């Protein structure tokens, strides 16, 4: 057993060995894909091969893939590039969506974190200005999956375009650009075992797109800047390795059953909705998330108190708030997320450490109650 069990794959997933090998090879080879000489052509062919693998992962054509520096940039690009001024976004979107559309009209979610389709329909018909609807495929904190096909159907009736942030879903569940019918779809390499610093946006052929980054004509004039060849090669290899998705739902269910047996008042958020098999957002009654995270870290287990973004400021989860979870409960929720290298030992270890902490805290509560 290793010294640590890393169970924070929704923050970043360790690099897959195949991705590492592809990157080291590309880093050693060098070359600028825009150069016409042999070194340039070799780099170009690495980028092209990766483009095919990433396209295959999401059922897209290679020409529909635009590489970017990550999921955040891809989300920004889609929203700005759609050309639509009016944006409708779900309440549980990532900040890279919400902050790039500060005037977005918010689509509420229900108690399980699923978008309210009736509310979306009302927003769409409220006035005729053509909109962009941005709804994620899977939520980063709860793993809850959204009914994208229904979102697309409603959006189409109203002449709206659809952007789908699939950063957390790709490589974990099947994603199909054309099956879903979305116009723009964002991906991040490091969430599926590829490297940080690379992501992609799929633009359905025929969807409008105005590029935002100006310079050389890379990525068929859709995103300027010398391609991150090694990062892209690593992304391609990780995409190929992730094509069958993750089969960790059994581990997750076992974990949640065990934790709920230890503390019957614990709550698994979004458990009533379809969700990713790798994510559990669960509360430990009466114990602040920060305390849990630190205690688990000391026990050699990496989990998180929410999204990893920004400066480490502790603030309440907007996702849980949107689901109507009371603050006092939300601040006791941690996120546990599995990945390609998680095994049942990790789960057993987490269950044991979680039980220890819970027992310790409850006993000290009892002692305090007796003393009082």
């Amino acid at each position, binding site marked *: 057993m290793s010294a*640590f069990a*890393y169970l*924070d794959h929704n*923050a*970043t997933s*360790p*690099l897959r060995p195949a991705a*590492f090998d592809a990157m*080291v090879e590309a*880093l*050693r080879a*060098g*070359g*600028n894909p*825009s*150069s*016409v*000489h*042999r*070194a*340039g052509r070799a780099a170009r062919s690495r980028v092209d091969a990766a483009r095919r693998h990433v396209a295959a992962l999401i059922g897209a054509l290679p020409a529909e893939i635009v590489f*970017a*520096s*990550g*999921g*955040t940039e891809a*989300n*920004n690009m889609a929203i700005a590039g759609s050309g639509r001024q009016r944006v409708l976004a779900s309440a549980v979107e*990532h*900040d*890279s969506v919400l*902050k*790039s559309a500060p005037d977005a009209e918010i689509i509420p979610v229900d108690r399980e974190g699923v978008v309210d389709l009736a509310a979306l329909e009302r927003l769409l018909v409220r006035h005729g200005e053509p909109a962009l609807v941005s709804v994620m495929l899977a939520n980063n904190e709860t793993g809850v999956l959204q009914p994208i096909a229904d979102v697309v159907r409603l959006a189409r009736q109203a002449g709206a375009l659809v952007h789908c942030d699939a950063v957390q879903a790709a490589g974990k569940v099947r994603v199909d650009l054309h099956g879903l019918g979305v116009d723009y779809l964002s991906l991040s390499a490091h969430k599926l075992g590829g*490297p*940080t*610093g*690379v992501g992609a946006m799929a633009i359905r052929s025929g969807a409008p797109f105005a590029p935002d*980054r*100006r*310079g*050389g*004509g890379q990525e068929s004039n859709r995103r*300027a*800047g*010398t*391609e*991150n*060849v090694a*990062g892209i090669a690593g992304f391609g290899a990780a995409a190929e390795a992730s094509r069958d998705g993750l089969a960790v739902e059994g581990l997750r269910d076992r974990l949640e059953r065990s934790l709920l047996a230890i503390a019957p008042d614990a709550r698994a958020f979004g458990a009533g909705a379809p969700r990713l098999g790798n994510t559990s957002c669960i509360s430990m009654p009466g114990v602040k998330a920060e305390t849990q*995270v630190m205690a688990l*870290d000391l026990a050699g287990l*990496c*989990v*998180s*108190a929410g*999204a*990893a*973004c*920004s*400066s480490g400021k502790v603030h309440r989860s907007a996702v849980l708030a949107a689901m109507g979870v009371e603050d006092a409960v939300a601040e006791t929720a941690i996120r546990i997320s599995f990945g390609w290298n998680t095994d049942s030992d990790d789960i057993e270890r987490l269950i044991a450490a979680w039980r220890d902490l819970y027992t310790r805290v409850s006993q000290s509560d009892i002692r305090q109650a007796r003393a009082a």
Partner: protein
Amino acid sequence: MNVLTQIRRNDQPIYLDYQATTPMDPRVLEAMMPYFTYKFGNPHSRSHSYGWEAEEGVEKARGQVAKLIGADEKEVIFTSGATESNNLAIRGIAEFYKDRKNHIVTTVTEHKCVLDTCRHLEQQGFEVTYLPVQKNGLIDLDALRAAVTDKTVVVSIMAVNNEIGVIQPLAEIGKICREKKAFFHTDAAQAAGKIPLDVEAMNIDLMSISGHKIYGPKGIGALYVRRKPRVRLVPLIVGGGQERGFRSGTLPTPLCVGLGEAAEIAMKEMDAESKRLAKLQARMLKGLNDKLTDIHVNGDLDHRIPGNLNIGFAYVEGESLMMGIKGLSVSSGSACTSASLEPSYVLRALGVEEDMAHTSLRIGLGRFTTEQEVDTAVDELVRHVNKLRAMSPLWEMAQEGVDIKSIEWAAH
């Protein structure tokens, strides 16, 4: 140190395109390796040691980059590359100060990503002055002084040109900008790690840096943003608020570490490496001059980085020459536009005539270039130039004393 064997196998062409991209220094790759594997955390994860370890790597790298340009580490933000840095610097500052100022000054020989950003801002209602350059590729400081007004928000002038390698007088430009209260941005993608840069002494407010031009990885760059007096920008990429809010997105730890290491190596070896490259540059030029006539170096030879030559071989078609010299990887201009056959706008800006611009090659020398490679390159160039000239009726006429420019071409 002989890392050459790790960089180039014998069956590969000699790489002489160091302005397009540079091979990664094996020491950089070595520094990056742990961050791909066991130190893989998200540097923004604050709740566990994987995150802290990654953050430590990122912050060390930030310090290394800052040191290279005489900045404070808090003033360095990481981006996905110099294109993004240039877009962010120019657009970000123009948009932030647009209520007070609406004018931008740049030059006609900037990289395409600067020029395209300026054109976009023109469409948004900004006024842009594109300063011409002199025949040697350098700007005229009096023309700059005359162009900057109290409406000028930013002056964007590159430190070193990507095609002809000339070094602009940064300290003098910075002084003019400071006097005239305009911000000074410089695209230092080709300069950082190659010439001494000091944001304080040169009064630079914003500076763009690229990883893969300094033997670091692709997909990473940096933007220096001055804190005192504070320079403000509207961010291009929003989201998690990383990088002081200037640039959201999970930082790619291994790439940041690679850029930092590349910056430190470049700084440590700059003096010795510049001298070594200057010798190679002189050797190449002498070799060509000894064996060929009618060749011409584009751009100033003295105010130039030693790793660049841009040479016109009269009466020879640059593209044909490139096809001929299969053993050498060189280019006819910027890599971004090298797939197009248009003559370089940089060379045209120097007043190089179109027929001569078409005969020009950019030859980039760098850390792994050896004397032997230079000699081989000279031999190959001489052989092919002579061969092509032997087939050229223009060359024949010129040898017979006909003034080519006096010929009146019949219309077809």
